[in-house]
């Protein structure tokens, strides 16, 4: 069946269509750090990569396998991290992502994978700092 038009919020559709920030970090100055979470039983796999320079995230990219909400969440997080100071990063958990994306409850398991990838990234980033 076709994906019903009403199932996805405008935010999800916008991020899904553009997948802004998908791909790998281009070579640049600063330290590259990544964080990843995989849960194939939930059909979600997310990897964030950031470049940190002078205490700030100067670039952020993601790679992801998953449903439109998973891809949109990864894209949204990548966009928010870019430019953020490492000591004052925006807080994201699955609940806030669900609110921002207007995601249905059954997507929480997948959004938790995005949250886990972000936690892994931040732990690695603080270790580098």
């Amino acid at each position: 069946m076709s994906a019903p038009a009403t199932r996805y919020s405008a935010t999800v559709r916008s991020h899904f269509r553009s997948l802004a920030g998908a791909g790998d970090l281009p070579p640049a100055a600063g330290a590259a750090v990544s964080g990843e979470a995989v849960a194939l039983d939930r059909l979600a796999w997310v990897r964030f990569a950031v470049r940190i320079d002078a205490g700030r995230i100067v670039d952020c990219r993601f790679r992801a396998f998953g449903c439109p909400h998973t891809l949109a969440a990864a894209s949204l997080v990548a966009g928010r991290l870019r430019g953020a100071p490492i000591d004052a990063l925006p807080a994201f958990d699955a609940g806030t992502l669900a609110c921002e994306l207007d995601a249905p409850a059954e997507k929480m398991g997948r959004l938790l994978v995005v949250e886990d990838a972000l936690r892994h990234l931040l732990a690695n980033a603080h270790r580098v700092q």
Partner: protein
Amino acid sequence: MARALYLDHAATAPLDPRVADAMAACLADPELQANPASAHAAGRAAAEQVALARGQVARLVNASPEAIVFTSGATESVNLAALGAVRACGPGRRHVVTSRIEHRAGLDACRQLEREGHEVTWLAPGRDGLIRAEQVAAALREDTALVSLMHANNEIGTLTDIGAVAGLCEARGITFHTDAAQSVGKVAVDCAVPGIALLSFCAHKLGGPKGVGALYVRRRPRPQVQPLQFGGGHEGGLRSGTLALHQLAGFGLACELAGAALGEEPARIRTLRERLWQQLQAAAPLWRNGAAEPSVPGILSVGFAGIEGESLLLELDGEIAASSGAACSSATGEPSYVLRSLGRSDEAIQATLRLSLGRGTTAQDIDRAASVIVRAVARLRAALPAGALERIA
């Protein structure tokens, strides 16, 4: 944006405009407003319309009109055949043979028979999706009441050799039923093949209206079938209820049109399907579910490594209407039990697209569909984490 390309004919085929016109005319005709069961002149006029439709439907499957029982669709036909035939057998014959890849109508009817105390042998297909006559032969017992196997599988399109199975059943005096909802009007279906006692099909898979179908019930020897509903004794007592004349007019014409197209249409559709499969090679790694042959011409079930099915459907939304491996087996969104029976992993199942072609499908449609799908798969794969392409297949 152009209208979405319809490649979901196995779910339902668009109503043929000629059929729609005939149905509208029937509904509006003041001479066709009576109950076909009424004895007065107006009733007889309506009954003549029923007889016309019954003849048209019967001709498509090479049956006599008297062998056609009208129902509300293939689901009812399958239930009537399976439940009705086994319940009529009595306590001496309590065994049923069917397969794990039947349509939900067949599966659920057989599960109901299990709940009623019958024993069901569930045949598993090979990795090619085929159920073989030898498997059926090995499963038959002295107390087998019914063998019920679908002719064409609705998800992967593979064809069962019903002639061979029917022959086995004939030799043992066992009732054989086949669910032919996906094959009637797509390939030649012949109820005169020895051993076919019951055959289910419906109108909406072949350009007719939804809500009407038929069960072929062989005349001689006539299998015992217990009705599921009771009332006025319509349809030889097997299916009580006032007949919906406009539905039957549509069903009849749809069968006539499908029969007229059977000469060249199957080969044309098959060629288009293989053209699609060849063009989709640009989206490798990919795989085909079920054997390419024997099959009905219009169904292609294809899986794409590294693809999440919901994202693929959204990517195609507005451009192609098709079914996913997760959803086409039921309304629940559960992974397809048919693909699981073929040994596919859950990851591979959800990465599956069922593309089904029909009478309106053109070569240009196929080229456009292939181009859209290849582009969509490439875009989603471009975002994959390293290693995902290999693991998700």
